[in-house]
C-alpha cells in the first residue's frame, strides 16, 4: 500500500470506484426489468372460413346437480393435427363426481364417442383428485369443477373445408351422500382448415370468452399429474404397505402428501396415511387394501408444497427407485416421446452412465479446468502474484502454505456438499450452485466482492487475515492461503466447468461417503495448480519478477471484482426484483461507508479508533440486515414464468421449458433444443453469448423450425431439477438436442458455434 499518496487523491479514487460499480450495476439491471413485461394474449380472430356451417365449440347439458359442457379448445383443426376437448362439470356445492379410481364407492364418468372415420378420440386425461370422505368411507373425486381432457386427432387425408361433426354420449355419477346417475349428449362441429390456424376462435366470440376458455384449459393442464412416471418401491408387510419414493422427485418443502391408488384394492382409501422424509426418500405408511397383492401398484402422489400442489405419477411395478420420471403414462401418449431420452438411464437409477472411477477422473479434471473460469481466475491471479512476491520462502513454509490453501478449498467444497446432501435428504430439490438460488447469499457474495474490490483498488486496507487476499507477510501467510482457498471455492459455485456436471450429477445420487469423495476430488483438482506452484520452486521461478507493476495490476484486478458484484446484483434483480436490488445497493453503499470510516480512523490516536470501528460495525449490521431481509422476498419471485432472456437475443425466440411442450413437439416430430440455464450461471450466459446467439446458429435453428425451450433455474424449480436428474445432472448448464426423429443428444457444457452446428448436423 502506498502510504505517500495524497489523501484527496484517494478520496477521489474511491468515489470513482464506487460510481463505476453503481453504473455497471444499473446498466446491467435496466434491461432485466423489461423481462417481466406481460405477454399479451394472442391476436385477432382470423378471417371467417367461407363455410356454410358455423363451428360449434361448446355443447351444454344442465342437470339438477351440475352443468356439463363439452368444449373444444379451438374451432379449427389441421388435417393430421390434434384438438383438445374438455368435458367440464360445474358441480353444485356439496356434490362431487369421481376420478378414474372412484375410491370406496362411486363411478368415474364415461364418454361414448360417435366420430366420423378418420377422427380418433384419446382416453380421458384426469386432473388429480381430492379425497372426499363419506362417513367411514373415502372417495377420490372432484368438487366444484371437474375438467376431463380428451385429445382428438384428425387423419391427414381429411378433406379440407369439410367440418367434423362429433357426438359424445357421456354418463356420470354425481353424489352428495346419495348418488344420482346422469347422462348427456353433446354435439360439436369443428372446422378443418389448411392454414392450420388452430388458434382461431369461434366466430363471434369476444376476447373475454376466449381468454376464459384459454384459462380453463390452462388450469386443467396445470392440474394434470406431471409427465412421466416415478419408479418407486412398495413393500408389503402384513396389513401395511410401505411406499418409498425418491425425495428428489418431490417439490421442495412438502407440507402434505397423499397417495391416491390408481386402482381399487391396493390400499384402504379412507385409512390415515403417514409419511416422512428420510435418507433422501419419502416413506409412506399405507393400510393395505382388500386385494393389495393382485392390484397394479400405481397411483398418484399429490403433494402440497410451498409453490403449490403437484401431482406425480408413481409406479412401483418394477419395485425400484429412480429420481427422474421415466417411462410412459398410458393416458398421455405424447409423453412417451418426451421421456424417451431418459428411458435408458433413470429407470435403473440416474447414475448408471457413470461409474465411480470415471466420476473421480471427471471431478479431478473438472476441478482443474475450474481454475480458468471467469469467476475464479481473478482470485487465483492475485494469489499467484502474491506468491511471486514472497518467492524466497523455505520449503517447509511453502508446503504449509500449499496445504493450507488446499485445505481451504476442500473445507468449503466439503461444507457445500454436506449442506447440499443434508437438504436433499430433507427432500429439497436442489443442485450444484443451489446457494446462489438464495437472494440472501447472492447479496452477501456481492458485499464480499465489493469489499475485495475496494481492498484491491487501495481504497481500504484489508488487514484481517481472513480477507487477506494478497497477504504479503509470511506470518499471516497460512491463514491467508486457507482463506484464499475457501474464497476461490466460494466464488467457483456459479461456474460449471466441463466434466464437472456429470461428476456432480453422479455424486448427489450416491450414498454420502461416495458423494463427498467425488466433491472433494473436485476440490482437489481445483487446488492442484496453485498448490503445485507453491510447492515447486522451479514453477514459482517461472512467474514474472515482482515490481511496481504488481501494484498496478492489483488495482486493475479490482475491476473483475466489481464486475462480479455488479453481475450478482443483476442476478438478484431476477430473484428479488427492483426492491431487492434497491436494498442491496443501499447495503453496498453503507458497507463502503463503514469500510471507509474504518480506514480513515486507522491512522488516528487509539482512543478515537472506536469511532471508526463503531461506525463500521453499525453500517455492516445495517447492510447485513438489509441482505437478510431479502429472505422475505425469496420465493415471492420464484413463481415467475419468464425465462432469462436478453432483448438482444430476439433472433432466437425461446419458450419457457415445460415437459408438456417438449412432448407435444416431439410427438409432432418437430426438432427441439433444450437449454437449461440460470442467471447466476456464468458458463450458461457465456455459452449463449458465444454460441447460441451467433447468426449461424440462429439461422440453423430457424431453418430446422427448431423449438427452442429454455429452462430457468435461477430460482428453485422442481420440474427443471427433475429434468436435469433425468440426464444424470444436478446443475446447469445442460443442452439437449432432440432431432425430429431419433434419440436426443446431450451437448457439452462449454459450447462453441461449431459444437452446436456439428451436433445439429449429425
Amino acid at each position, binding site marked *: 500500500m502506498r502510504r505517500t499518496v495524497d489523501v484527496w487523491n484517494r478520496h477521489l479514487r474511491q468515489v470513482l470506484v464506487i460510481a463505476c460499480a453503481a453504473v455497471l450495476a444499473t446498466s446491467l439491471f435496466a434491461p432485466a426489468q423489461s423481462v417481466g413485461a406481460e405477454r399479451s394474449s394472442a391476436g385477432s380472430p382470423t378471417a371467417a372460413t367461407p363455410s356454410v356451417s358455423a363451428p360449434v365449440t361448446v355443447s351444454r347439458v344442465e342437470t339438477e346437480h351440475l352443468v356439463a359442457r363439452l368444449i373444444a379448445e379451438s374451432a379449427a383443426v389441421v388435417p393430421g393435427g390434434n384438438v383438445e376437448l374438455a368435458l367440464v362439470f360445474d358441480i353444485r356445492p356439496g356434490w362431487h363426481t369421481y376420478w378414474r379410481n372412484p375410491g*370406496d*364407492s*362411486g*363411478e368415474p364418468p364415461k364418454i361414448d364417442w360417435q366420430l366420423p372415420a378418420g377422427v380418433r378420440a384419446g382416453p380421458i386425461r384426469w386432473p388429480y383428485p381430492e379425497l372426499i*370422505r*363419506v*362417513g*367411514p*368411507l373415502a*372417495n377420490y373425486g372432484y368438487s366444484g369443477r371437474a375438467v376431463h381432457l380428451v385429445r382428438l386427432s384428425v387423419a391427414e387425408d381429411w378433406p379440407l373445408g369439410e367440418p367434423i361433426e362429433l357426438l359424445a354420449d357421456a*354418463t356420470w*355419477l354425481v*353424489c352428495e*351422500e*346419495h*348418488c*344420482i*346417475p346422469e347422462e348427456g349428449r353433446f354435439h360439436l362441429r369443428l372446422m378443418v382448415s389448411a392454414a392450420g390456424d388452430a388458434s382461431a376462435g369461434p366466430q363471434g366470440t369476444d376476447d373475454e370468452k376466449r381468454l376464459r376458455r384459454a384459462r380453463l384449459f390452462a388450469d386443467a393442464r396445470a392440474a394434470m399429474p406431471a409427465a412421466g412416471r416415478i419408479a418407486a418401491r412398495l413393500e408389503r408387510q402384513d*396389513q401395511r404397505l410401505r411406499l418409498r419414493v425418491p425425495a428428489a422427485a418431490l417439490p*421442495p*418443502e412438502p407440507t*402434505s402428501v*397423499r397417495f391416491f391408488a390408481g386402482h*381399487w*384394492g391396493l390400499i*384402504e382409501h*379412507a*385409512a*390415515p*396415511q*403417514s*409419511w*416422512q*422424509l*428420510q435418507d433422501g426418500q419419502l416413506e409412506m405408511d399405507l393400510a393395505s387394501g*382388500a*386385494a393389495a397383492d*393382485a392390484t397394479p401398484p400405481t397411483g398418484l402422489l399429490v403433494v402440497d408444497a*410451498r409453490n403449490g400442489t403437484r401431482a406425480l405419477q408413481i409406479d412401483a411395478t418394477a419395485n425400484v427407485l429412480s429420481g427422474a420420471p421415466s417411462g410412459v403414462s398410458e393416458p398421455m401418449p405424447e409423453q412417451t416421446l418426451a421421456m424417451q431420452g431418459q428411458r435408458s438411464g433413470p429407470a435403473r437409477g440416474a447414475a448408471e452412465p457413470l461409474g465411480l472411477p470415471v466420476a473421480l477422473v471427471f471431478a479431478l479434471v473438472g476441478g482443474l479446468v475450474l481454475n480458468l473460469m471467469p469467476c475464479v481466475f481473478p482470485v487465483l491471479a492475485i494469489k499467484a502474484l502474491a506468491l511471486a512476491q514472497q518467492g524466497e520462502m523455505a520449503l517447509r513454509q511453502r508446503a504449509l502454505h500449499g496445504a493450507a490453501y488446499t485445505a481451504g478449498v476442500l473445507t468449503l467444497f466439503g461444507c457445500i456438499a454436506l449442506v447440499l446432501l*443434508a*437438504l436433499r*435428504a*430433507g*427432500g*429439497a430439490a436442489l443442485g450444484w450452485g443451489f446457494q446462489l438460488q438464495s437472494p440472501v447469499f447472492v447479496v452477501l457474495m456481492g458485499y464480499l466482492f465489493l469489499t475485495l474490490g475496494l481492498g484491491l483498488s487501495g481504497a481500504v486496507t484489508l488487514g484481517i487475515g481472513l480477507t487477506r487476499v494478497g497477504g504479503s507477510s509470511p506470518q499471516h501467510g497460512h491463514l491467508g492461503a486457507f482463506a484464499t482457498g475457501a474464497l476461490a471455492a466460494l466464488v467457483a459455485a456459479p461456474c460449471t466447468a466441463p466434466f464437472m456436471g456429470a461428476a456432480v450429477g453422479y455424486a448427489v445420487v450416491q450414498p454420502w461417503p461416495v458423494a463427498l469423495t467425488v466433491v472433494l476430488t473436485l476440490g482437489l483438482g481445483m487446488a492442484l495448480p496453485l498448490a503445485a506452484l507453491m510447492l515447486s520452486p522451479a514453477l514459482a521461478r517461472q512467474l514474472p519478477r515482482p515490481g511496481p507493476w504488481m501494484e498496478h495490476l492489483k488495482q486493475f484486478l479490482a475491476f473483475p471484482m466489481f464486475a462480479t458484484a455488479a453481475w450478482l446484483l443483476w442476478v438478484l434483480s431476477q430473484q428479488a426484483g427492483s426492491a431487492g436490488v434497491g436494498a442491496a445497493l443501499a447495503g453496498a453503499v453503507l458497507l463502503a461507508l463503514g469500510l471507509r470510516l474504518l480506514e480513515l480512523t486507522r491512522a488516528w490516536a487509539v482512543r478515537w479508533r472506536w469511532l471508526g470501528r463503531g461506525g463500521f460495525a453499525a453500517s455492516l449490521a445495517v447492510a447485513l*440486515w438489509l441482505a*437478510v*431481509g431479502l*429472505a*422475505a422476498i*425469496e420465493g415471492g419471485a420464484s413463481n415467475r414464468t419468464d425465462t432469462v432472456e436478453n432483448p438482444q437475443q430476439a433472433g432466437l425466440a425461446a419458450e419457457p421449458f415445460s415437459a408438456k411442450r417438449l412432448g407435444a413437439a416431439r410427438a409432432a416430430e418437430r426438432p427441439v433444443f433444450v437449454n437449461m440455464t440460470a442467471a447466476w450461471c456464468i458458463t450458461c450466459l457465456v455459452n449463449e453469448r458465444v454460441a447460441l446467439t451467433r447468426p449461424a446458429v440462429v439461422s440453423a435453428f430457424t431453418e430446422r423450425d427448431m423449438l427452442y425451450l429454455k429452462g430457468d433455474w435461477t430460482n428453485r424449480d422442481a420440474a427443471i431439477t427433475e429434468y436435469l436428474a433425468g440426464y444424470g445432472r444436478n446443475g446447469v448448464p445442460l443442452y439437449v438436442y432432440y432431432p425430429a426423429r431419433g434419440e436426443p443428444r446431450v451437448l457439452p457444457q462449454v459450447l462453441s458455434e461449431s459444437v452446436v452446428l456439428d451436433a445439429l448436423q449429425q
Partner: protein
Amino acid sequence: MTRLTILASKLLSVRNAGTWLVALILIATSAPTLAKPEVGAPAPDFSGVDSEGQTWTLDELEGQRVILEWTNHDCPYVQKHYQTGNMQALQREAIAAGYLWLSVISSAPGKQGHVGAEKANELTETRNAAPTAVLLDAEGTIGRAYGARTTPHLFVIDEDGTLVYMGGIDDRPTSDPADVAGAENYVRAAMAELAAGGSVSRPVTRPYGCSVKY
C-alpha cells in the same frame, strides 16, 4: 420486527426441510373406522334383528352357508339389480341351493335407504324379493364389522363360518340396467364353485355402487 419474524419462520421452514420430517395425518372423523375382514378367515360374528323382530347370530348358523347383501332401495346401483330382477333371481337361486340370504340395511336414521321394519317388508313384497331375512342395522354395527362399503356389497360365508367371497355382484360397475345382461356374476360363480366342492377362484372383487350411508 416483522422482517425478523418472517426471517425466523423462513429459517424454521428451511430447518424443517433439512431435518427429518415426520408428519402424521390423522383424520378428524368421529366415526369408528371399518374393520377389515379377510377371505379364508372366520367371518366376523354378528348379531342383528330382522324386520320380523327375529334375532340372527352368525355363531348360531353354523353348518349353513350364508350370503350377506348390503342394500339401499334408493341407490341407483341397487335399483339396477332389483328392477331387472337380477337380485331376486340370485336370491332364489341361493336359497334353492341351501343358502341363507340376509339382506342388510345399514343406512343410519335420516339417511338415504333407512327403513323401518314395516317399510322393509313392504319393499320385499313390492319388489318380489326373496331374502331369508332383512336385517335392520341402523347403527351400522354389522356393516362396520364387515367393512361394507357399497350397496350392493356381497359376502359369502361357508358352512364352517369361513368368509369365502366378498365384493361386487358382478363385473359391470355401472348403474345402467342394460349392463346386467352379459355381466359375469361373481356370486353365482362362487356358488357354482362351492357346489362343485372347489374353492372360490375370485374371492375378492371390487364392490361397486353407492356408499353405505353410515
